């Protein structure tokens, strides 16, 4: 459409596959799952749940005093952002660019604090809770703590749009740079809602996967005939978005370019996605980028592994792409890292950026017998080289019907 | 593409003072408080708290069956959106404009649902959980349901940024229209956390007001020397924003114009605000509107009634406006309606629109003994006529150091 060009000049992750971008990508490319059976809850009352959890220890990257005011999601966000600032060369004496903005997605916030707080509240006669409760539970915790930790003084926005949160965060960050409001944005997402109280709420929706005969790692099976649902994950990812001028002026390494963003709503039903809404998001994104379906070589899909959701996205892609749908490679990396909800868009956009940069496409793991309704090239099992890859899409389609698609191009 | 002007063409409110904006404004202008002492039930025991609650009944606007899937904040938002769409003339056979965007600020989301969820989950033995609990809990509920109820299929964005949530929602919707991404947007906020679980958390922050000797209605006292803190409220306010061409093409009544938006972060301290960060947001908003500070006649302050917060804002207003600060009228309507958190900015923007339309500035109620360290014209106690009022500023400053300012302009006769 218009405006200034926007580049990704750094990436930072705290993901179920680790923190190093190259290592994460390699493991994904090989089809390696980070999904495990995890015992959650208390010693008295626990359950085995399929999760893509992280063995996270901030170490001295977050001071003890600072940790008191950070729920898990905020800690993940701060470390992921630290990694991104270092990756981009923008970290100076522990601080980031003061004039930057922070745009973060977060579905819930301090989920584990919420649970602990209600436990405390009901257990105590006094009905008192800890003073840090409200600051810790707010969904704005990650963005706010990133701003404070790195001295970032531009706007700090938190997007809370369920599974579309961080895609919209990145999309609006892209627009704010393109339209001239800001030169650099730390854009991404964080989510940590694997506490048993949150997991129980998701179980109530009836959308979680059951363990596959081949074990935990085989249980998230987007597009596969034997798929039974999604697997929750946790983590954070931050992308550094910069205007072309600013990036060039400092000789930044340009990882990829963000060229388009499209969003829509289903206005349909709370838990049933709509083909029309998803199709529109994809079309809007391509139009925004000034590109056509034929230009796209890879789509990192939203597909979570639910029986009803996956075919809807396939149909939406077919309608948006027409015949070109048969020529595009698509994969769901959720098959390996699970569904990070508020952080999913950011993690998957980061993976898509790496795929473009390396010209290698990660697979849909566990895709052994495709559902006939999912009859596109879903890159089953292991990754593939893509020497001509130029443009890729990243989709996030949320419960509650918010759809977001980002368009990325090789730099 | 040239930048487009953005007008407000409809406003729907579900507020402590009622759901008719004109009537709500008249009460706010008259200094009538909605602050009450409310008994808050907590598992058997009851405790009175100063709150600004909404006497809410969605009536026929939300079918009984749908209500099960909606948190309180969501229900309020759906009703407010209805009033906004109806008022703007955009509600047709129960549906809104299909291509519109929905931009909503919401701090805590379905916090009543969350309390219910954990009461069941933590019970001994645990009680069965409600099926769609996970969805009702998240802050995206209000925006999602507005979209579903009125068939609105444009982008759907929820901002959860504490007390600046709805200022950012309105500001970002304004930008989306200005740059041609949208022609129409529903923008505003929704908040309903006045139940025992959430209130227990707020009590511990030592920011809530204690009851004034003159009673509940006198207890929210921004800028007063005897202020003791804030009073929490609830509600939902939704504005219809339209591009100039879309609004004029259908002969819509223009209520006010949004001309500027600025946002910043303090990067300072979680609970203590910084005057520098606030001043930056105000200056950015003025620059964005391409007007000098001297054009502003009125500032609707964030000021919640806390000792430190009000003082810092007085300072940041003075920093921003320099000598013009002495000519500004500044008032905090939180003195009568309390602090609606994620919906605060939207209510205050709506009231500021009425001030611009009517040429009347609402007072800071309960300001009987001004704090000498807050040295501005705070329009104490009595509302004032201001027929020359053209531009107004509305401030929102949040815990966690987020700041957002909107600049509104009266619709001028061409």
């Amino acid at each position, binding site marked *: 459409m218009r405006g200034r060009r926007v580049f990704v000049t750094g990436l930072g992750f705290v993901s179920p596959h680790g923190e190093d971008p190259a290592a994460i990508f390699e493991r994904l490319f090989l089809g390696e799952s980070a999904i495990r059976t995890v015992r959650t809850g208390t010693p008295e009352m626990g359950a085995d749940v399929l999760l893509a959890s992280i063995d996270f220890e901030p170490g001295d990257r977050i*001071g*003890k*005093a600072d940790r*008191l005011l950070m729920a898990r999601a905020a800690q993940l966000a701060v470390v992921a952002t630290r990694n991104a600032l270092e990756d981009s060369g923008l970290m100076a004496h522990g601080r980031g660019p003061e004039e930057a903005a922070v745009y973060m997605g977060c579905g819930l916030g301090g989920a584990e604090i919420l649970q602990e707080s209600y436990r*405390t509240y009901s257990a*105590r*006669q*006094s009905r008192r809770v*800890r*003073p*840090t409760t409200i600051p810790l539970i707010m969904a704005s915790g990650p963005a706010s703590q990133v701003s404070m930790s790195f001295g970032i003084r531009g706007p700090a926005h938190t997007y809370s749009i369920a599974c579309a949160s961080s895609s919209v965060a990145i999309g609006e960050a892209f627009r704010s740079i393109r339209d001239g409001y800001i030169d650099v944005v730390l854009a991404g997402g964080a989510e940590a809602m694997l506490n048993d109280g949150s997991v129980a709420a998701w179980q109530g929706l009836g959308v979680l996967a059951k363990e596959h005969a081949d074990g935990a790692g085989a249980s998230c099976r987007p597009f596969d005939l034997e798929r039974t649902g999604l697997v929750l994950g946790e983590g954070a990812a931050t992308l550094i978005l910069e205007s072309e001028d600013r990036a060039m002026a400092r000789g930044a390494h340009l990882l990829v370019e963000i060229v388009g963003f499209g969003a829509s709503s289903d206005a349909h039903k709370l838990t049933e996605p709509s083909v029309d809404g998803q199709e529109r998001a994809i079309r809007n994104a391509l139009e925004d980028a000034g590109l056509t379906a034929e230009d796209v070589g890879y789509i990192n899909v939203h597909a979570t592994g639910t029986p009803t959701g996956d075919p809807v996205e396939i149909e939406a892609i077919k309608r948006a792409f027409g015949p070109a749908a048969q020529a595009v490679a698509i994969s769901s990396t959720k098959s390996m890292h699970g569904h990070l909800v508020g952080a999913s868009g950011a993690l998957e956009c980061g993976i898509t950026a790496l795929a473009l940069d390396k010209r290698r496409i990660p697979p849909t793991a566990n895709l052994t017998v495709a559902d006939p309704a999912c009859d596109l090239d879903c890159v089953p099992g292991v990754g593939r080289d893509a020497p001509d890859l130029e443009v890729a899409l990243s989709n996030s389609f949320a419960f509650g019907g918010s759809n977001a698609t980002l368009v990325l191009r090789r730099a | 593409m040239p930048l487009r002007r953005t007008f407000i063409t409809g406003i729907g409110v579900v507020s402590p003072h009622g759901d008719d904006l004109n009537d709500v404004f008249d009460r706010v202008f008259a200094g009538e408080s909605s602050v009450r002492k409310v008994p808050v039930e907590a598992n058997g025991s009851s405790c009175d708290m100063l709150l600004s609650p909404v006497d809410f009944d969605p009536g026929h606007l939300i079918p009984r069956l749908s209500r099960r899937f909606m948190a309180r904040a969501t229900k309020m938002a759906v009703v407010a959106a209805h009033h906004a769409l109806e008022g703007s003339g955009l509600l047709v056979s129960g549906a809104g404009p299909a291509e519109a965007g929905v931009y909503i600020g919401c701090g805590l989301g379905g916090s009543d649902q969350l309390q219910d969820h954990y009461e069941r989950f933590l019970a001994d033995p645990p009680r069965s959980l409600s099926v769609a609990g996970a969805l009702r809990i998240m802050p995206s509920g209000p925006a999602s349901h507005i979209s579903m109820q009125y068939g609105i299929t444009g982008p759907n964005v929820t901002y959860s940024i504490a007390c600046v949530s709805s200022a950012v929602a309105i500001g970002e919707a304004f930008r989306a229209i200005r740059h041609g991404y949208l022609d129409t947007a529903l923008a505003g906020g929704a908040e309903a956390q006045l139940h025992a679980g959430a209130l227990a958390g707020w009590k*511990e922050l*030592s920011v809530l007001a204690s009851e004034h000797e003159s009673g509940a209605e006198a207890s929210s006292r921004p800028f007063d020397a005897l202020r003791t803190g804030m009073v929490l409220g609830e509600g939902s306010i939704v504005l219809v924003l339209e591009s100039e061409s879309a609004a004029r093409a259908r002969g819509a009544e223009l209520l006010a114009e949004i001309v500027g938006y600025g946002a910043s972060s303090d990067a300072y301290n979680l609970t203590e605000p910084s005057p520098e960060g606030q001043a930056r947001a105000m200056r950015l908003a003025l620059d964005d509107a391409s007007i000098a500070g001297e054009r502003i006649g009125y500032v609707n302050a964030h000021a919640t009634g806390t000792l430190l917060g009000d003082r810092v804002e007085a300072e940041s207003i003075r920093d921003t406006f320099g000598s013009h600060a002495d000519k500004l009228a500044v008032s905090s309507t939180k003195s009568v309606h309390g602090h609606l958190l994620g919906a605060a900015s939207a209510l205050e923007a709506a009231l500021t629109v009425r001030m611009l339309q009517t040429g009347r500035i609402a007072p800071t109620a309960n300001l009987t003994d001004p704090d000498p360290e807050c040295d501005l014209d705070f329009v104490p106690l009595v509302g004032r006529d201001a027929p020359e009022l053209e531009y107004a500023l509305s401030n929102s400053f949040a815990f966690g150091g987020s700041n957002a300012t909107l600049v509104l302009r009266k619709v001028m006769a061409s």
Partner: protein
Amino acid sequence: MTPYAFLAEVLSEKYDVDPTSISPEATLTELGLDSLTVVELLFDVEDEFEIEIPEERATFETLAEAAALVEELLRAKGA
């Protein structure tokens, strides 16, 4: 673990208080704790020992006094 030992550990591990400054005679203010942090600390103690510290009893100043209060509440609970 004794109440005093628990306090010492939590103060240094969680609240980042310099272990060398922790002693029975040290007051919470001397150790650099503000009022909100003191309340948090009391929650930690209540959780650990499964007691509730009534607001009006939380008037101790030194760590020794705090530990003594906890011991007293534990004895009352056991009784």
